[in-house]
């Protein structure tokens, strides 16, 4: 249904040198739904997200948010302004305390005063179940799981309409990964946001996905509801999800 398409990749081609990463790539993410993109290493999952964030300019084609083409490297793009992003590494700024990391957009882009911005950052910490006493610590003093929570708090503090998650559970133990997955699911529902996640973690996919798309050779190999993955609608997707190298 065209009306509820939030993000659309339209014939997007991205090349790095002689390597074509996305090849006339088409995909849509629908409003209020959680789309998980899976695929082998180096197939262009991260590039897919970065084209929507305006970080990578497609060689051809375009990405639209709310029907408007995303501009490349423009921090004032209205589409990008409604995005929250959780990076694989967290990407928190080492030189700032946790609360200033979380409140960064509020302080620098929305020019909120420090007192209000700190209060919003502390609320965000509550939402991701990270104790407020961590607010004044530096990222270097937190564990991997705590860093992911802090990064998630930064992604949601601006009350985003769109959330991107890049390998949200990479490097976490299974229990912490499960906690992060549940937090993501809760936050996506809370904001009624459109979520696009890329992951290799099938447990993560099962927890957070409404729909799944698999990329191969720069194109969408298969796309469908989570049930379709579980019922092995496509043999190659089935093999990937079950972690089988053959048959």
């Amino acid at each position, binding site marked *: 249904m065209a009306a509820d398409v939030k993000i659309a990749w339209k014939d997007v081609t991205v090349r790095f040198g002689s390597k074509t990463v996305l090849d006339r790539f088409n995909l849509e993410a629908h409003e209020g739904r959680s789309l998980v993109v899976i695929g082998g290493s180096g197939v262009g999952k991260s590039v897919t997200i970065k084209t929507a964030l305006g970080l990578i300019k497609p060689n051809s084609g375009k990405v639209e948010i709310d029907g408007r083409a995303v501009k490349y490297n423009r921090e004032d793009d209205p589409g990008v302004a409604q995005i929250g992003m959780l990076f694989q590494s967290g990407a928190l700024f*080492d030189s700032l305390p946790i609360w200033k990391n979380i409140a960064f957009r509020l302080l620098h*882009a929305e020019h909120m005063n420090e007192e209000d911005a700190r209060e919003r950052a502390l609320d965000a910490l509550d939402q991701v179940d990270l104790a407020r006493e961590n607010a004044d610590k530096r990222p270097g003093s937190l564990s991997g799981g705590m860093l992911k929570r802090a990064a998630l708090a930064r992604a949601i503090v601006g009350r985003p309409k769109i959330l991107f998650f890049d390998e949200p559970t990479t490097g976490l133990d299974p229990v912490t990964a499960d906690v992060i997955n549940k937090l993501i699911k809760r936050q996506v529902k809370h904001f009624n946001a459109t979520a696009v996640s890329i992951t290799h973690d099938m447990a993560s996919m099962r927890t957070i996905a409404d729909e799944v798309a698999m990329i191969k050779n720069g194109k969408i190999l298969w796309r469908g509801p989570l049930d379709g993955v579980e019922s092995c609608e496509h043999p190659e997707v089935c093999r990937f999800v079950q972690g089988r190298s053959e048959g």
Partner: protein
Amino acid sequence: MNPFRALGAGLLALLHSAGAVTRFALETVFAAVRPPWFGGQLVTQLFRLGFLSLPVVGLTALFTGAALALNIYTGGSRFNAESFVPNIVSLGIVRELGPVIAALMVSGRVSSGIAAEIGAMRATEQIDALHTLATDPMRYLIAPRVIAGVIVLPLLVIVADLIGILGGFAVSVQTLGFDPSVYVKNTVDILERWDVISGLIKAAVFGFLLTLMGCYHGFHAEGGAQGVGRAATNAVVSAAVLIFAANFLLTSLFV
């Protein structure tokens, strides 16, 4: 490989690099003159680039001034021109050695540091994160560092000039037997306003170049820890080469 083809490829790569650096420099200037400005970042960089560079700049200027006085005395004594030591030391320090020595020492300390810091931010996606937080990295990261370089280098050069002349004075009076009051009088008499101003203009240009090189190589770092190390090395080497080249051009312009 055909040597002409290799030469052509090298030339094209050089032109490509020159174009990329020029474009980056123009983007930096554009970011520096348009709001929003990040005052807190600028103050931090002024402190890190300026105040923390004072000891190394001061020490090198002191030894350079002292060595210069000894050399000029040795050379001057061959044709009975020892009395020109204060004149040549002060002119040499203010017009040439103060700006160049200070810029080289700061580039060794600062260009590599900036390249490593920004390169690590690139490797850990912190620069991408800035974009997603509606903040332009050119304004938040690059412009404050380059502005700080342009402001701080002339101030450091004033310090280097004073300490360098002091080094020459100390050696001349203590070792070479110069009269202190005559030495000071000769130093003050020989210096003209333009000598000082031209040195400070050089310093501002060097400050721009050395911070720009740190930022450029850090911003374009690729390949994790190895890439960050490469960026730091390239930043120092390219800053040093550009400082010498700019010094020649500016000196030609100012004589």
